[in-house]
Structure formats: structure tokens, C-alpha cells
């Protein structure tokens, strides 16, 4: 019997009082794709960081191809044949592809010969694994799909036999993700071992041979992919049965609450981010905005939320609102019945060093109920927060804790409780479940649907297509500052939406990955 490519025995790692990994053992056989799935904070990334020499395990042993191996730093990991593609790429933006590949793996003190050798190697690797890149392109000028291929090439150039990919599809369109998986299959056929870390059940089911599930720092189970189901994996991840589909009845849309007409936004750098967006959201419906991050959806939310100026027209309940920023801001938007759950809750939704009760008053701190004469009525805010914490099941249920000491899901619940309990006519919600665990996702989705059923209008922005498809009553796809089209969730699928997200309106025919990437890169190029 062949030795496992990787075997971890009893790995434990604590960060202060937090036990990130508890006695983890895992075997990954060579020439397979092994999935590691778990909620945020389950310890997946910590485990892989230990394998890549970023952290030293407190206890435990690592065996590579049957040999006990010490991995004190990244250099040792590379020497052991391990390559890692991080979720956030580790590329030097203003270097060329070639320079990035060579960095750290140069042959001698002079650069010229190393670059020449790498150029030759790249041609060879590109042919072998379908990893097409332009060696002389600057990283900042190529799309994320190609940047990811550069990361894979970096690992292969260092002769990695084991490739770890951390949440690789988070930034890709469905077509690009499929392309990536074909590359991974190709690598597997060449005998490489691949570890795929993800929180997406569908990816695990599609490409892996076996899968390990992590929960709260522990390895709960390792199973053959062919012998399991998404439902079983979800249950292993969360520790209880979860509903993977959003349970909602058909929408009963009423009068338009939000009418956006020819909205144009030019950002601080002079780049036009919205190029004439028109859409409307009616009472009692959820309009989902699908799109690859950076195509204008963030700016749309910011304009609606009153924190960015624009030209064009926006009407709330039939009344025009000021877009120049002269007569309106975030506060006046709130007074008009618009609540805003921003995309980046840690930067815009919360102040991480402030306590939960302080955070739950932000934006509404001028509410007379929170005042007592000239002073803030802190006791009232605290009491109010306690109610919110109970109704939104925030854990730990302590309003005195600082925002940063809650998990991602609970932070989001604090923001959501603050905005939803104001009973807004229109709820703007950006990336409601980014970095949120499955259990909390279910809860957050239910709350959004409840608000819809109460006859409110909801504008949902998300880069997660699954979320858009399951939550929305209507879907608008944004690309390069334009709305490419609207679809009904029942009448579309990921493939069609994926093409629209890449700016391709002809969804009847097949399109090559090169065509899709060229379109995406062109749109991204304007931003730089």
C-alpha cells in the first residue's frame, strides 16, 4: 500500500485561550483531490497554515510521503513539495507574471538567467496543464482568474507535488470556477495531490474524491465523496440538521418603493463606476443584484445609503431624493425609511473596538428614545440592545462585549437587528452572509424573507450566486457599471447568470474561457 501524500497526526494549536485545532489527524492519498470543509472559524485555514509553515503546531506530527517532516517555515514547506494558493493572492501587483513566478526561486544572484529559464518553463507548464498566462503582463492588469493561475504556476515552478487551495472560487465567475476545476483534474491526472478548502458544498461534491469535515477546531469525519450527500456534510459541519434551501412562499409585490433611473457614478479616481443604472424594487419583493465584485454594485449600495454622490434620479415611495450630497446624507436616508446593512460590516457596519450596545445605536443615536436631556440615555440603549440580542439570537448574549469579540455571524446579526428593527420601507443589504457560518446563514435568510413578507422592499447585493438564486424574487445582473439584464430565479441558472456577469448577453451559445476572461479583464482594466 502506498504511503499517504500527507498524514497529520494529533495536530493541536491554540491562540491564547482559543483552541483553533484540537488533536487533528488526517490522511490524504497521493493523486487525489481531498476536500476540507467547515464553517468559518472551524480551523481549516489554521491547519493549512501549519502545513505551510506559517504557524508551528503546539503538538502533533506531520508525515509527507510517509516521512516525518518538520515544517518550521514556508521554505521548509516548499522544500517538502507543498505549494499553497491563498484566498488572498500573494502577488506583487506591479511586477510581471514572470517576476512573480521567479520571486524566491531564483537560480543565482543575477536575475537575467533565472527569468530566461522561468520563461521557458512557463511555456512548458502552460501546455501541460492548460495554464495559459502572459508572462510579461503586469499582475495589476490581468483578471483574478489569471492571477490565480499565476499562483498555481508559482507552486508548480517550485516543483510542488501537493497543492493546497484555500477558498479558490470566492472571486471567480461560475465559468472560471469550472475552468479551474478542469485544471485541477488535469493536475490530479499527472499524479499531483490537491487539497481544496472551501465552504461550498457543491464544489466538494463536484470535484473531490474524499472530504474531511471540520467543526470548532476538530475533525468530525472523513468520508468518500461518492458515499455522502450535501445534506449529510452540512449536518457534520454544523452539528445539527440544516435547511439548505430558503423556505419562502411566492412574493406578492406591491407598489414600487425604490425607482432608480439612469444612475451614474464617477469615483474619486475619476473612474466611472456606474454607467446609467435603472432598476426598481417593489414592496414585498427581494431584488438580487448578482455580479463579480468590483462591477459597481458596491457603489450602487453606497449611493442609495447616502454615503456617495451621483447623478441621475432615485425615488423612494415616489419622492425624489437628493443625490448631490448637499442636502442629504446617511442620516437623512434613514429618515426616509432606507436601512443599510453595508457590505463590509467590520469597516462600515460596526466599530470593532466599541461595545455591542454602542454599536446597536449607531446611525440611530439621535433617536429621542435614546436621549435623556443633553445626555445619551445609555441605560435605555442597553435595554434596547438586550431585546435585540434576544430576538436575533446573538451569542454570547452580552451587550457589554466589544464588537470584535463576536464571531462573524453574530456581528452580522447585531448589524441586521439594528437595521431591520427600525422597520424600514427599503432594506439595502450587501453580502449578508459573507464570513458567516451555515447556522447563522439560515437565520439571516429567514429574517430577510420575513421582512419581505411584511411588505417591505429589499435590495440584496451578493457575490454568492447560490444566495442570489435562493433568496431573490427577481435578479438583476451588473457588469462594468451596467445592468446586463433581469431574470426570474425560476427561469435561469448559474450558467446563464455567470455569462451575464462576464458581460456576455448571448447566453444561448457556448463561450470559451478566453473570451470570458478577456471581457472581465477589460472591465477590470478601466479601474486601474
Amino acid at each position, binding site marked *: 500500500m502506498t504511503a499517504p501524500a500527507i498524514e497529520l497526526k494529533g495536530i493541536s494549536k491554540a*491562540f491564547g485561550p482559543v483552541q483553533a485545532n484540537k488533536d487533528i489527524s488526517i490522511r490524504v492519498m497521493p493523486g487525489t483531490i481531498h476536500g476540507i470543509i467547515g464553517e468559518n472559524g472551524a480551523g481549516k*485555514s*489554521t491547519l493549512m*497554515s501549519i502545513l*505551510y509553515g*506559517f504557524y508551528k503546531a503546539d503538538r502533533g506530527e506531520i508525515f509527507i510521503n510517509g516521512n516525518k517532516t518538520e515544517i518550521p*517555515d*514556508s*521554505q521548509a*514547506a*516548499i522544500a517538502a513539495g507543498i505549494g*499553497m494558493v*491563498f484566498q*488572498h493572492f*500573494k*502577488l*506583487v*501587483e*506591479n*511586477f510581471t507574471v514572470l*517576476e*512573480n513566478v*521567479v*520571486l*524566491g*526561486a*531564483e537560480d*543565482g*544572484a*543575477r*536575475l*537575467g538567467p*533565472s527569468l530566461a529559464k522561468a520563461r521557458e518553463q512557463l511555456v512548458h507548464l502552460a501546455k501541460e496543464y492548460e495554464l495559459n498566462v502572459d508572462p510579461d503582463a503586469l499582475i495589476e492588469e490581468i483578471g483574478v482568474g489569471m492571477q490565480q493561475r499565476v499562483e498555481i504556476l*508559482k507552486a508548480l515552478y517550485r516543483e510542488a507535488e501537493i497543492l493546497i487551495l484555500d477558498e479558490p472560487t470566492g472571486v471567480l465567475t461560475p465559468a472560471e470556477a469550472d475552468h479551474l476545476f478542469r485544471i485541477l483534474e488535469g493536475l490530479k491526472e499527472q499524479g499531483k495531490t490537491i487539497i481544496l478548502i472551501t465552504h461550498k458544498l457543491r464544489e466538494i461534491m463536484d470535484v473531490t474524491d474524499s472530504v474531511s469535515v471540520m467543526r470548532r477546531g476538530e475533525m468530525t469525519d472523513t468520508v468518500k465523496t461518492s458515499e455522502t450527500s450535501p445534506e449529510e456534510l452540512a449536518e457534520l459541519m454544523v452539528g445539527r440538521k440544516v435547511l439548505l434551501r430558503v423556505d419562502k412562499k411566492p412574493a406578492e409585490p406591491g407598489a414600487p418603493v425604490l425607482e432608480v433611473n439612469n444612475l451614474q457614478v464617477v469615483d474619486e479616481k475619476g473612474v466611472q463606476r456606474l454607467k446609467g443604472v435603472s432598476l426598481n424594487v417593489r414592496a414585498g419583493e427581494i431584488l438580487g443584484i448578482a455580479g463579480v465584485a468590483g462591477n459597481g454594485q458596491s457603489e450602487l449600495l453606497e449611493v442609495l445609503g447616502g454615503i456617495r454622490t451621483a447623478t441621475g434620479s432615485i425615488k423612494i415611495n415616489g419622492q425624489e431624493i437628493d443625490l448631490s450630497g448637499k442636502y442629504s446624507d446617511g442620516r437623512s436616508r434613514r429618515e426616509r425609511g432606507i436601512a443599510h446593512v453595508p457590505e463590509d460590516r467590520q469597516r462600515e457596519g460596526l466599530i470593532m473596538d466599541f461595545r455591542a450596545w454602542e454599536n446597536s445605536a449607531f446611525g440611530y443615536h439621535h433617536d429621542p428614545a435614546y436621549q435623556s436631556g443633553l445626555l445619551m440615555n445609555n441605560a435605555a440603549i442597553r435595554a434596547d440592545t438586550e431585546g435585540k440580542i434576544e430576538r436575533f439570537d446573538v451569542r454570547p448574549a452580552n451587550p457589554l462585549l466589544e464588537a470584535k469579540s463576536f464571531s462573524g455571524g453574530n456581528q452580522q446579526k447585531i448589524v441586521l437587528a439594528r437595521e431591520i428593527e427600525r422597520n424600514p420601507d427599503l432594506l439595502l443589504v450587501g453580502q449578508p452572509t459573507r464570513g458567516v457560518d451555515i447556522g447563522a446563514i439560515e437565520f439571516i435568510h429567514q429574517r430577510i424573507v420575513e421582512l419581505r413578507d411584511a411588505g417591505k422592499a429589499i435590495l440584496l447585493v451578493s457575490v454568492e450566486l447560490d444566495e442570489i438564486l435562493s433568496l431573490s424574487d427577481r435578479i438583476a445582473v451588473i457588469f462594468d457599471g451596467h445592468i446586463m439584464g433581469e431574470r426570474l430565479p425560476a427561469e435561469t441558472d448559474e450558467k446563464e447568470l455567470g455569462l451575464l456577469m462576464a458581460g456576455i448577453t448571448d447566453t444561448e451559445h457556448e463561450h470559451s474561457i478566453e473570451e470570458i476572461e478577456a471581457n472581465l479583464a477589460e472591465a477590470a482594466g478601466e479601474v486601474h
Partner: protein
Amino acid sequence: MDFVTLLQILDSTLRLATPLLLACLAGLFSERAGIFDIGLEGKMLAAAFLSAAVAAVSGNVWVGLLAGIAASMALSIIHGLASITFRGNQLISGVAINFLAAGITVLVSQSWFKQGGRTPSLEGPARFESWTLPLANTLEPIPILGPIYKELISGHTPLVYVALLAVPFTWYVLFRTRFGLRLRAVGENPAAVDTAGVSVVGLRYAAVAICGVLCGIAGAYLATGLQAGFVKDMSAGRGFIALAALIFAKWRPWYALWACLLFGLFSAIETRPDVIEALIGVKVQVQLLGALPYIMTVVILAGFVGKAIPPRAGGEPYVKER
């Protein structure tokens, strides 16, 4: 303005640009590696003092030069410890170094030499002599080129040539060597360097050390080449002008040469108000001419001259992500 006057002005431009150029390249190495260094001024000053002091005592300017480099290196190591090892604020560390140098040089100088914070005047082998390049006198009769060679190119102290040669050297190191690639990468995205298995801390210390050496040469040149001894605050803001030149040069070695020569020219015409008057027909106050390099510095630092993108990871200590 006649040819001889022009040569004289360009000649002093070169001499005055030398400390700026050395300090500017010092800053270039440091900042390209992501360590902002506003302590160039302090390091030059410390080097100026110690080089003059040791040259005065030993009577050998080369020993003085080494002592100057050592003084500057000592401050560089402090900056490295504060900003790399202890991940402190690089600006505050730089300010502290400037204050430390301004105070300690005068204090120690007074304690050693009892001359009101000066060092004794340097003479003979305790000072850098001008080098007359080969054939300078033979070629002088050739019209135009002869005098240019003799007056402008020949007849400088060795450190002037060191500074000039440092430009192509810096360019080569940065853009044609493995070390340069890694150095530039660590200033742009240290995480990329770290995950590639290269030590971020090691690279940054190397950059700070090179910065120390170049600042040390710059300071020694001030006290033993340009002038004959150390006086209080003799760096006179040159460290800050070098920083302005660095931004003006967009962190590129050849641009740094031209930027420093420009600042050198401003300093040179300060000493020749008569030339300016002859050129523009209006008498300009000497004080105004003297302020010109500093005014230019403020204008450049305020960002009026084009868009300069600093190294992206500049000023930020590197902490591994979880």
C-alpha cells in the same frame, strides 16, 4: 553669463548635489523595502560628527569615513529594531533619530573638544583632497571639452565619484539582481515574499543597513569633503531635501540623480546672486535664493509635481495574517 561662470556653477552643483544624492539613494533602498526613513537627516549629522571627530584625532580621513559609517549604521540599527523587529511607527522612530542626532552630536563634541560644539578644523590627510583625473592638464587646451573635463569632471573629492557611481550600481542591484527583485517585492507586498520562503525581516534589515552605509558616506562627505570639520546642525535639512528628491524621482535611481542635481543647482546659485541678476535683470534677495531648495521641497512634498506612487507596503510593519 560666460562659459567659465557656467562651469563654476555646475561644478558647485555637483559638489552640493553629492550629499543629497547619497542620502537620496540611501532612502531609496530603505523605502523600496517598505521602511520609510525620515531619519536620513539625523544619520547624516551623526556621521558628519563622528567622521570629523575621528579624522581630527587620527589624522586619517579614511578612518574618519569608517567611523562616520559606523555612527550612521548604529542609528540605522535602532531604526530597524524599532520598525522591523518591534513593528513600531516608522515616522516616530525617524523623528526620534533626528532629535537624538541633533542633540548628541553637539553634546559629545563639546565634551571632547571644548570648541563650542565644533570639531577642530581638518587639514591635510584628515580631509578629503580633490582628485585630479588623468590627463586633465594635458587635455585642457581642447576648446569646450577640455575645460569641461578639467573643471567640471576632474578635481573632486573621491566621495563625489562614489556618489555618481552609486547611481548605476543602485540601478543594477535593484533591477538586475535577485536581491533587488526581493527588495522591491518586500516593499510592495511582504506577504508574497514571506510565502515564497524568503525572510521579510532579513531583507528589510539588509535594506536599512545599506541605507546606513550610504547615509554615513553622505555625512562624512559633509564634514570632511565639502567642509573642513563638524559644526552644529551642519546637515541643514539635506536629509529632508533628499526625501523630497526621492519622491520627485519616483523612487528610481536615475531620476534620483537628476532630482538631486536640480536641488544642487538651486544651492549653487544661492552663492552667485550676481549671475541670477545678470540672467533675469532683477536683483533677487540672497535670502530668497537660499530658501529656494526648501521651498521646492515643500512644493514637491505637498504633491504638486505629478503623481508619485510610493511602494505599497511602505510604512507598515509586516505581521503574518491568520
